[in-house]
């Protein structure tokens, strides 16, 4: 029987059997060989050792030729049954002592010793071991061993492995006979199904697929194949049915056609009759046509004369762009080119260029081409460099001329020579550009002036002041007067420059308003602090006359301050041993809120004539006053313009010799854009973002009186308060800018204090802001449980609240302040001031050095100049904020540079305040720095 034809069942069994048996045979054989080889090695090694032992023991006996002793020693081998013979030979090779074992033969001893080493015989193993004494060979030891043990081992091994083989083969047969079912059963089942399909032609038969292996897939394939055949069968049947149906239809159709042919023949008869009627009508038509043709010729002549008398050129092309008609005006404009193009009969050859006067006009963009595509073209600008004197500008209107189906068949273009107009336009653009460039140059000049003029003056003022102090300290009184003069003159010059620049900026319309809400009372307090030493200089008394509920206003606080400072300083300058009163009130006029400021003095007063010129430039009361009282004479002019800018007014009421009253009225809520200020959109966005003062205490209370009360106490403590009338407003404010602390009323309509507290604690950026809860009812435990920092019961003792808040806010410590300025004098003045305040100060000449200083130690506050060599303030800020440790360092910009809206936008969010440095450090800048330090330069409570 050929193996190939055996059943798959037998094949699988055979494969398993043959494989396992041959593997076992191979394994056993290799094990046998390995075992025999190692056994032989073992035997050889053992016998050699035996011989060596005998030799070692017998050395002395051989040396002393003591044959008896040697024989005694060999007798010891009796305990080893496998030793057949042993002998010792002396140096001459004669047997000196010998031993014959139980199975050995005395005659079998070799007469002479053989070569040293082991010698394998068929049944024996022999060893010759030389004997040495004192490095001389004195004899040989001979041992012969029986190999029957070795053969016995071999036999035993072969018998046991054959037995093992038979048992293993039987087991393999049994196992494979059982396991082959796994493969053979599905195949046999498949085979049975296939037989069923082929004998019965029943394609609905399916084989159960119970596995996903290859056989499983084969069964799946078989099933799919059957399904396909079944489907094909059904389709065939369907096609057959449809064919029969079609044949039926066809027969019906043939019947219909025969009927129709009969009807057609009947129609032909009537048609002939109609043709005769029509030809009569056509003759009548031809006569009518001749009449209208005559009329048309007349009209065309009229149109032609109209066309040629037109001022604008007219051009008509057919659908291929060939010029079919043009009038005199067109010819006049384009003469030679037109002739040329006309000869070529192509409108594209006219040689027009684009409005840039260089690029040839693309064919498909030509107004005519566009009109031919059905577009109506209006006022397209074309330029022809060769036509006319220095080229011709044409404004072209083009329209498609459509046939009855609405398809453009030709195009008409009307050309108007606009060269003159164009030339004027170009000149206008040039003039505008020149004007803009000049304006830009002026702006740049102003910006540079403000920086370049102030920087050296700062040095003069700063050093002269320092020298004054030094001179005083060293008792060099004789220099004091001169130094003071230098200092005063410098300050005067600086004030003059500042005022001139201010004024020119206002005149140039380059002053922007930075509108933000601020507290009026806070502004007044601040002003009083600043102006008090000035007032005291002429032994004047400073009083205030404050109206009720001043509240807050939205305006440009810097400019309001500037105006009021100017008025106050004027008042104290022109008054001595008198009274200066600052009055503030709030009123409503025409539905708008206004804040009125009044500065009254009991000074020299102003005459009526002087009053007229008062707000003009360089117009002090009279020429002599400048010498007597100092000042630039620009202050009031600037104030007037600033008030105008802020939508307010300034007026004066005075009686000569009795004093004067300056009144400033400003809208309480200045809307950006009301004034024609040049502040652009970005600036107003910045203002909205910057609306909250940095580092403030948020007061949330629905009772206005309570808010005001708390705010007043906070101000006394030197804290800035921002007021919110509801929980929602308070949350919105806190999210816009993180407050230092929050005073929160519990009982409020809509959103109560607990809800606000929960919302604050839920916001990760606000969760650690200390919150002081205020209420009528005592719910201490609830407040602390919800995370309130403190709990106060109403009615509130304002001082206690302020104290509690103060305690909760990290205190001012020895702040580490980094001063970044390229001007050495500015640095020195600031350093001296910082030192006096008890702060540590470090210096940096430019941004790069400042970055190094920041890397050394994180400063608590950075005072930053913007204009510096190497790395300016903007770049420093960018690099600082990019560092992980530097992104929350507080930075205040102190710069002599005028910050424009774009730069302000760049700084927005990066710095907490921008202080414009106008030179007179001692008067305004240093108090400002003090205030900044008090507000910002506190070390974190942890530090």
């Amino acid at each position, binding site marked *: 029987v050929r193996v190939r034809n055996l059943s798959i069942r037998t094949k699988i069994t055979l494969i398993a059997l043959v494989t396992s048996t041959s593997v076992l045979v191979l394994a056993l054989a290799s094990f046998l060989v390995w075992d025999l080889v190692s056994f032989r090695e073992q035997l050889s090694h053992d016998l050699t050792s035996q011989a060596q032992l005998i030799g070692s023991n017998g050395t002395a*006996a051989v040396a002393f030729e003591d044959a008896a002793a040697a024989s005694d020693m060999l007798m010891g081998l009796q305990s080893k049954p496998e030793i057949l013979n042993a002998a010792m030979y002396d140096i001459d090779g004669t047997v000196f002592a010998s031993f014959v074992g139980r199975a050995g033969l005395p005659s079998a001893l070799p007469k002479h010793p053989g070569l040293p080493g082991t010698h394998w015989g068929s049944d024996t193993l022999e060893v010759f071991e030389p004997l040495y004494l004192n490095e001389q060979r004195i004899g040989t030891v001979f041992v012969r061993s029986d190999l029957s043990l070795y053969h016995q081992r071999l036999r035993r091994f072969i018998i046991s492995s054959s037995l093992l083989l038979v048992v293993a083969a039987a087991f393999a047969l049994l196992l494979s006979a059982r396991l082959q079912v796994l493969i053979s059963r599905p195949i046999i089942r498949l085979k049975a199904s296939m037989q069923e399909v082929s004998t019965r032609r029943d394609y609905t038969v399916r084989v159960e697929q119970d596995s996903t292996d290859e056989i499983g897939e084969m069964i799946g394939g078989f099933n799919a194949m059957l399904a396909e055949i079944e489907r094909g069968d059904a389709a065939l049947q369907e096609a057959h049915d449809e064919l029969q149906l079609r044949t039926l239809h066809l027969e019906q159709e043939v019947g219909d056609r025969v009927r129709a042919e009969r009807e057609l023949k009947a129609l032909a008869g009537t048609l002939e009759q109609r043709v005769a009627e029509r030809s009569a009508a056509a003759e009548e038509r031809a006569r009518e046509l001749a009449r209208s043709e005559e009329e048309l010729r007349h009209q065309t002549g009229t149109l032609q004369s109209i066309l040629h008398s037109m001022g604008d050129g007219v051009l008509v092309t057919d659908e291929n762009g060939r010029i079919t008609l043009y009038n005199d005006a067109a010819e006049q404009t384009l003469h030679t080119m037109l002739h040329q193009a006309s000869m070529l009969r192509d409108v594209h050859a006219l040689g027009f260029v684009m409005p840039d006067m260089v690029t040839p006009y693309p064919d498909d963009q030509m107004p005519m081409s566009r009109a031919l595509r059905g577009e109506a073209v209006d006022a397209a600008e074309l330029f022809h460099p060769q036509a006319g004197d220095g080229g011709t500008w044409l404004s072209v209107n083009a329209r498609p001329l459509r046939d009855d189906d609405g398809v453009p068949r030709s195009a008409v273009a009307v050309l108007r020579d606009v060269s003159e107009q164009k030339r004027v336009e170009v000149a206008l653009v040039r003039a505008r550009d020149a004007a803009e460039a000049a304006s830009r140059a002026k702006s740049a000049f102003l910006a540079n002036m403000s920086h370049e003029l102030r920087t050296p003056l700062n040095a003069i003022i700063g050093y002269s002041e320092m020298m004054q102090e030094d001179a005083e300290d060293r008792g060099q009184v004789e220099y004091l007067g001169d130094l003071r003069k230098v200092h005063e003159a410098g300050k005067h010059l600086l004030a003059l420059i500042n005022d001139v620049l201010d004024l020119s900026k206002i005149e140039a319309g380059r002053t922007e308003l930075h509108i933000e809400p601020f507290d009026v009372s806070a502004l007044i307090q601040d002003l009083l602090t600043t102006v008090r030493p000035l007032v005291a200089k002429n032994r004047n008394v400073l009083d205030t006359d404050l109206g009720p509920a001043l509240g807050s206003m939205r305006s440009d606080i810097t400019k309001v301050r500037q105006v009021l400072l100017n008025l106050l300083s004027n008042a104290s300058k022109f008054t001595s041993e008198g009274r200066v009163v600052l009055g503030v009130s709030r009123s409503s006029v025409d539905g708008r809120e206004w804040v009125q400021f009044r500065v009254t003095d009991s000074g020299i007063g102003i005459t009526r004539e002087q009053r007229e010129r008062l707000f003009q430039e360089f117009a002090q009361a009279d020429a002599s006053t400048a010498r007597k009282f100092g000042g630039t004479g620009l202050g009031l002019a600037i104030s007037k313009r600033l008030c105008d800018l802020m939508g307010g007014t300034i007026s004066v009421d005075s009686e000569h010799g009795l004093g004067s009253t300056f009144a400033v009225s400003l809208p309480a809520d200045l809307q950006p854009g009301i004034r024609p200020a040049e502040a652009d959109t970005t600036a107003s966005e910045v203002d909205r973002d910057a609306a909250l003062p940095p580092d403030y205490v948020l007061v949330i209370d629905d009772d206005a009186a309570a808010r005001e009360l708390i705010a007043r106490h906070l101000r006394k403590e030197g804290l800035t308060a921002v007021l919110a009338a509801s929980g929602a407003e308070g949350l919105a404010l806190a999210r816009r800018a993180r407050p230092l602390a929050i005073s929160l009323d519990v009982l409020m309509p809509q959103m109560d204090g607990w809800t606000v507290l929960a919302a604050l604690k839920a916001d990760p950026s606000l969760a650690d802001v200390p919150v002081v809860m205020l209420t009528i009812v005592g719910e201490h435990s609830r407040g602390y449980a919800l995370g309130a920092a403190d709990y106060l019961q109403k009615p509130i003792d304002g001082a206690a609240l302020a104290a509690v808040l103060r305690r909760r806010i990290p205190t001012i410590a020895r702040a580490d302040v980094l001063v970044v300025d390229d001007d050495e004098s500015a640095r020195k003045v600031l350093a001296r001031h910082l030192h006096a305040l008890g702060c540590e100060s470090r210096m940096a000449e430019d941004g790069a050095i400042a970055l190094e200083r920041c890397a050394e130690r994180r400063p608590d506050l950075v005072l930053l100049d913007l204009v510096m060599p190497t790395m300016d303030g903007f770049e420093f800020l960018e690099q600082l904020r990019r560092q992980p440790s530097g992104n929350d360092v507080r930075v205040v910009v102190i710069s002599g540079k005028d910050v424009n809206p774009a730069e302000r936008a760049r700084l927005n969010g990066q710095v907490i305040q921008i202080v414009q440095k106008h030179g007179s450090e001692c008067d305004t800048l240093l108090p400002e720095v003090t205030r900044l330090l008090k507000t910002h330069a506190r070390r974190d409570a942890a530090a």
Partner: protein
Amino acid sequence: VLAICLHIFASSGTARASSTADVDARTATFVYQFAMFVAWPASAFLGAHDPIVVGVVSSEATADAFDRVFQGKSIKGRRIVARRLSWASELRTCHLLFVPVTEAQHVEELPTRLEDAPVLTMSDDQTAARRGSVVAFALQNKRVNLEINVDRARLAGVGISSRVLRLARIRRGGDL
């Protein structure tokens, strides 16, 4: 004693002289072979190539026989030389002292004379190992009767190979 010896030698005559010389040569050969199995302490020699000195308390003829046998022989790089000694001379100047059976009456003196010096004493008197010598031997045909007093050997600081000890009858006791 010397007189008796001289008398014996003189009376034995030349015929006996040759057989006596044979015995001497065989004795000398055995002494040489025995010396191969002996290890002296390093202190017994001054230099690395100093010879092994075999003292022979005997007649001139016996000493000559030893000289002849030792001629050109060496053990582990040391030459072996014979030196004739008398009982009166200093016995501690040699490494191996051979006392023939004819002088065996002096064997008892050896321990006190040598005072544990590294000197291997040998005698062909059968009882010598029990009386004061380290090694006593008797050469027979195809057999060597060997007695070794291992305690004395240890006192002298002289090592004897186990290969030899295996062939010998072992005696113990330093004062016997």
